[in-house]
Each structure stands twice: as C-alpha cells, then as structure tokens.
C-alpha cells in the first residue's frame, strides 16, 4: 500500500535554532546536523513534539542547535532518559544522540537494554573513533594500535564494533552513514525515525582536530560504499552481520538491517496495558483500602 502523501509543512530551517554551533570548522557533526534538519522536515513533526536527548561530548551538543525540546544530559545517560520521556509521553518523537565514547564506553551498558526493550526512538551516534571534547583520548571504537594522548605507544585494545554489536543484540534497524553523503544520511535518518522501534544510525562523523587524516570527509567520499550498490538485502540480518564485520575496514553506508515485520514496541505494549487496566483503577484516594483488614 502506498503511503498517503504528507504535505511538507516544515522546512529544514524550521528546526534550526538561534544557537551557533561551536564545533571546530570542518567537524563532521555539522553535516550530521544538516542531515537531521532535513530528515525532521521530511518527517514533518512540529518541533515542540520532538524531544532530543544527548549525553556529553562535542557531538552531544547537537540538540541545542535544533528547535526541538533539547536535553543535553550527563555523559553516557542519554538512552535511559530518552526512554523515560518516551514512556511518559509516547506521542513524542524521541531522538537520542551522542559520541562513540558516550554511547559505547560510559553508556555502553544501556545500549543492549534499550535495544531489547525496543522503545520507539532513534539513536544517532557520531562515531569519530576519538574523544573530541576532552581533546583526543582513546575511544572504544579507536582502531587497535592508534596513537592518542592516552595511548602514546599505540592502543592495545580491540575496538567495539557498533554495527555488529547492535545487530547481535537484536536491533530492528541498524544503519550507517557519513556526512560525506549528506543527502544519503538525511534519508537514512528519516527512515530510522519512521521505523517503529529502536533504531540505530552510526554516523562516521570525522573529528578534524583529533582524528586521523584517512578518516576525514574527503577520504570518506572516496571510500564509501553504499549498500544499495552491492545489492545488499536489508531484511537479511545474517547478511547484515556479515557486512558489519567490515566495520573499521570498509565504509558501508545505508541500511544494514531493517526488520520487515517490526514487533510491537514497548511503548505500544505499555499503552495497551494502561488501556486494558484503566477500568480497574480505584480512585487514588481509595488506594489504601486494599490494606484494610476486613
């Protein structure tokens, strides 16, 4: 069935706030912000119906540059806060954003649970393989051997693979993009937002100041391989996991996996439970009656 055409009532600029970004000139996050403006315009929800939560990091500043209700919380805790918002008001569109350190290091413990709960929200990670805000330390996605200020002699650790990890936890929507292809990234974010359930968009968003030279927008443009161009079937989780293993070696962009028959979301189940139990509610002031020894 064809979706009814929605008139574009919002334009990208309606989501742009008056706050001027303070990212380093050339930071990949500028492109991600533009892509988010476009995706939000395409989705067409009013800014005041959007809650945009982030943690701490350069990338976590992003909600402030939008006209949505933004919440720049504490390092690593954006996902739990966002889930609380969505459960309290499922009518809101909830976006979450942050860096690779925020999401896969300090906040790493929250990711599998957000995924298995499957609350309808979109998580955009600006993965620059480095700690930007704190000036260039090792990140959980930094490649093994990387020299940083906290790994002078080269990192001894294997990186986390965000794509493989989220697919393995059962995420219903996993995609990757780069600001080197802003239009493509906007499409991916839009599709993620429209997906009913938890969706992850891992964005290879270069850090111009502390990142590696071969990990910049220009290099991405040359290296990126859209998944559509290699005939990947995004309904095939196993194929997606195969491709995800290339993380850090090849730059695949597009949707790795999208569950063709999304299960009901947690927030929908909550609503259903609330509806079915509403008639059982005694007036609040009579709640204690159940303890009377009759």
């Amino acid at each position, binding site marked *: 069935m064809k979706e009814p055409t929605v008139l574009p009532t919002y334009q990208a600029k309606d989501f742009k*706030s008056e706050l001027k970004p303070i990212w380093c000139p050339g930071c990949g996050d500028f492109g991600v912000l533009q892509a988010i403006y476009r995706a939000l315009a395409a989705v067409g929800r009013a800014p005041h119906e959007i809650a945009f939560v982030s943690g701490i990091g350069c990338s976590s500043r992003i909600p402030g540059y939008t006209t949505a209700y933004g919440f*720049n919380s504490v390092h690593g805790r954006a996902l739990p806060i966002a889930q609380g918002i969505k459960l309290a008001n499922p009518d809101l569109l909830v976006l979450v954003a942050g860096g690779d350190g925020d999401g896969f290091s300090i906040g790493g413990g929250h990711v599998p649970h957000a995924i298995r709960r499957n609350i309808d929200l979109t998580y955009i990670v600006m993965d620059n393989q480095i700690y930007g805000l704190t000036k260039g330390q090792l990140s959980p996605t930094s490649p093994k051997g990387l020299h940083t200020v906290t790994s002078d002699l080269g990192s001894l650790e294997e990186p986390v693979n965000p794509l493989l990890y989220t697919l393995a936890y059962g995420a219903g929507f996993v995609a990757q993009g780069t600001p080197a292809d802003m239009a493509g990234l906007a499409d991916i974010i839009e599709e993620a937002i429209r997906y009913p359930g938890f969706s992850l968009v891992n964005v290879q968003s270069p850090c111009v100041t502390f990142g590696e030279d071969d990990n910049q927008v220009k290099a991405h443009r040359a290296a990126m391989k859209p998944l559509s161009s290699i005939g990947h079937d995004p309904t095939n989780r196993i194929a997606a996991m195969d491709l995800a293993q290339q993380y850090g070696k090849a730059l695949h962009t597009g949707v790795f996996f999208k569950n063709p028959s999304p299960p009901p979301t947690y927030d929908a189940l909550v609503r259903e439970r609330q509806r079915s139990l509403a008639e059982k509610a005694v007036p609040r002031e009579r709640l204690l009656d159940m303890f009377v020894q009759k």
Partner: protein
Amino acid sequence: MDDLVIGMAGSGGDGIVSAGESLIAAAAYEGYHAMMTKSFGSQVRGGESSCRVRLSTRRVHNPGSTLDVAVALNWEDFLRFGAELPVSGSTVVIYESRTGVAPDKIPLVGVAPKEVFAVPISDIAKQAAGTEKAKNTVVLGLIAGWFGIAREAILRGLRKKFIKKGEELVASNERAFTMGEQWAREHPLQTPRMMDKAASHAGKKMLIDGNDMCAAAAIFSGCQFFGGYPITPSTEIMQFFTREVWKYGGAVLQAEDEIAGVGAALGASIAGKKAMTATSGPGLSLKTEIMGLASIAELPLVIVDVQRGGPSTGLPTKPEQADLFAAAFSAHGDVLRPVLAPTSVADTFDITVEAFNLAEKYQTPVLILSDQEVAQRKETVDPIDTARFTVIDRKLPTEAELKDYHRFKLTEDHVSPISHPGMKGGNYQGAGIEHNESGNPTASGKMHATMNDKRFKKLKPLQRRRDLHRIEGNPSAPLALVAWGSVAGVAKEAFDRAVAEGLDVKLFVPLLVWPIAEEIYRDFFASVKGGIVAELSHQGQLYRMLRMYVDVPAGVTSFCRSGANPIQPLEVVAKLREASMALQTPPQIPSEE
C-alpha cells in the same frame, strides 16, 4: 494487660513468620494497635527466621524492647537473633519440647525466666492435623489460650488462608489451633496475663508496611512513573508500582541499573509527569550524578533511599541511619536537595505526599530517607483522611508566557514556570551545563552565581516549615531529646516515660532532616542545657550536622551506635536521667573553718 510483645524464631520451614502474619492480621481486625518486624538469616530460602509482634490497646511507636513472650521452635535459631529477641525474667518462654532441653536448662545466659513451658508442639500438630507443618498453627493456639488474643479473628484468618486448598486443610488447622489453646488452658500461667479487649475499630484498620505505604502515597500524589533497580530493602516500592500504576495511565521501568532507573524517572519528569525512583545505599551512590542533573536542570524528582547497614553491601537486611550525610551532601557542586525522613509506616504517607509537593513546587529532586525498619515493618494504621492533603502540581507557563518563554526566568519566588515537550512555544534546552534564563549554555561566572542563588533561594521558605518538625513537651524544658527516622518512635516512648517519671524534657523530631532548619532548632535549643540526640549510626550523623549549623548547647550529646543494634526506650530514658543529673549543681554546703 494492655501491651504485649511476642518474639518467635524457628528455621525457614517452620512458618514462624507466617504465624506472626496471622496473628497481626487478626489483631488488626480486632482493632488492636500492632506492629510486626521480621528478621531473617542471610540465606535466601531456609535458614533461620524470626518475627516480633507487638499488640496494644494504645498507639505504639516502636516494635517494643524486651519480650513478654518468647517462642523458640529450636534454640539454635532463637539464639542467632541475639539482641533482636531479648528475654527477661518476666518473659513467658515457650519452646518445642522435642529439643530435649529441660525447662531449667534453657540456653539463655544471665536470665532465669519464671514461666517456662516445654510444649510438644510438633506432636500436637501431628495429632491434630496429621502433619508437623501445622506447628505454627499450634503456636497460635497456645498464644490465644494463654493471652486471650483475637481467638475468633485468628480462626477467621486461618479459614481465609487455607480455604483455597480445601475444607479439609481448614479443619485440620482449626483442630491444631484448638489443641494448642487446650494445652495452654491445661497448663495455666502462674500469673495470668490476659490481654485487654481492643477498642472497637473492628474491620477498619489497615495493616501495611512502609514501602507499600510509600508507593500508595506516591500514586495518590499523582506519580505516574517509576524507574528503578531491585535492592533490599526498597524493592517492594517498585513491586507495588508494577501492580498498580498502569491503572492510572502510568508505567514502570525495571532498569538495567540504578543510573538508568533514575535516568528514566528524570526523563518522565522532563516529559511532564511526576516520577520517582527508590533504592538503598549502594544504589544511592550510583544515582548521585543524575540527581545533580535534576538539581541544575530544576526538574521535580522524588528519590527514596531505604537505608540499610553500610558502607557497601554492609548489612542489607538491617536498619541503620548512616546515609544522612550521603543524602544531604553527596553531590559535586553547590547543591541543596531537601531530605525528608518518615518515622513510622503511618507518617510515610504524609512524608511521601510532602516529597512530591516539594519536588513539584520547587522543581527540585527531593530525597525520602526511610530505613529498613520503617520500610519493612508492618503496622496497623487508622484510615487516612486523604481530604486533608493538598496535592501540588508544577507551575506551567501561561499562554502569554509561552509567547516569550524563558525556562529559567528569574522570578520573585525564584521558581520559573516549567514547560514540557508537547507544549507549543515552551521549547527549551535543558542541560547539565550552566545556563542563562532561556536555558542556553553559558560559562559566565556572573550567570553561574545568579543561577546558584536562584536554586538556593527558592528553597529558603522550606527552612521555616514548622510543620515539618515535631516538637512536644514543656517549651522551656532544660532537657532535650532529638531523634529522627525510625528511632523517633523509640524516642517518643522514652519521652513519654521520662515525662511520667518527672523529667523536664522536650522532644524534637525533624521530618525535614536537610536542610537544617536553623531557626527552628535555635528556638528549640534556647531553653536547653542538656540532653541527647539519639540515632542509629556509628558517627551520630544528625548530631554532627546540627553542630555544623546550630549552636547546640554543650550539654547535649550524641547517643548513637551502629545499625542493627536497636536502641531501646529504657536506655534513652536512662541517658536523659544522666543528662539531668549532670545539670544539677551540687548545693553549696557552708564550710566550717
């Protein structure tokens, strides 16, 4: 007799706690004032268990001290509870004769109770019900027989409890009960001790513990979200929510850890809903960073810390009052976060409603500092007149204010109307970073000072809330007794006894334990020369906090000890006596040269 304290111990399978439950339920039904505490060994199942039930025709404020009746199904288990089940010479001791211990050889050191009964409890059970499992019902019969408590109500309760499993089980338990009763009648006490009848409140009293009370009060206050992680002794709060809150359009999230639990609750508050989390010491440590976020982002949030013995895992099932410093101070930066402490199951309702009201009114996290004793003891509570409570909701921006909205607008009362996602025109940037009036980030020292000032000043009126401090006794008394949390119930009894014996003492129980209401304490201490601050912590944390903020008279000292070593009313009275003696200046005897 108008007051009776019964302590019982056995091993896990003996059903001793379940006997206690039946007894207190029956007592509540009959209209007695009653209280029950349970205590277990560290095994999850099996192991030793005990309970203590206090029944009275008057209101009681604590679970009582020395036992009037001690029931031991075996001595090893009984003795493991030590100070929790103290026996005196006047305690009636009832024990299982199968233990093979002769009545004059019971293994209690330093006491020789006058009335000791070796009862063939298991044999009676077997004879009456065909199974030793009915031992606990036999015990109920013995107690009803000797002390005349709630016979009909116990039988009624047994029927209710066993009818699901068939008439036969009801009948066999009735036989076990009657035979226990019969045994007691055939072996009368030397000094009969029949309990007075309760004033007739039959079928009106509630029987409830502090955690259920807290959760019910939260839902009464309009709380629609609970996020948390299980931890003894707070988990029953989450469990109540999972049964009830959906009916009120709310939700529960059992999070992956305490940080996520409080984070989700904060999220719900951002979205405009009243929200709470509950935990115990280890979880409180984890929640600290997000509590700070709630302070700077000026978001209403209620956090419950049911204190247990600490630090770290400490004594997970025992009460202590050693989280006061953490509750007040654990935060980086300049933070003022109100802390309220319930003193009983009954006032847990008031405290919880107050916590939500303060959180909403002042847009701040508020901590409820309960403790294992208040949270897990069962108490009879008279029906609560909910009409006397006003439920406060956060101040939302008006249509006009939404036209030019500034989330952190500086106002006369330092509280700014708060919007939430979904409200057109109310869009703002909430953050942990310092912000200006519109919510935009700033690194200005001037703005930081202004906002700190705002966040502190809005809470000023709180420190003048006399209704959050319970003061009793002669206003110009020279002796003071200060206590908070569960120890306040012990202090209340001690205070009544001290006054009865002629000590000129007054009692101070803060329900708001932080910030310290300096003026209220100052007024209270004006006439005071000596006294004690009684609390269950090694350091005497309230005493030390008072010394930070108030001129505590030099004669007021700390009476404190580590958790799980209950403070008894008689000890408090003795301390007051001592303090009184210290105030007496010896008469000047003229010396003859």
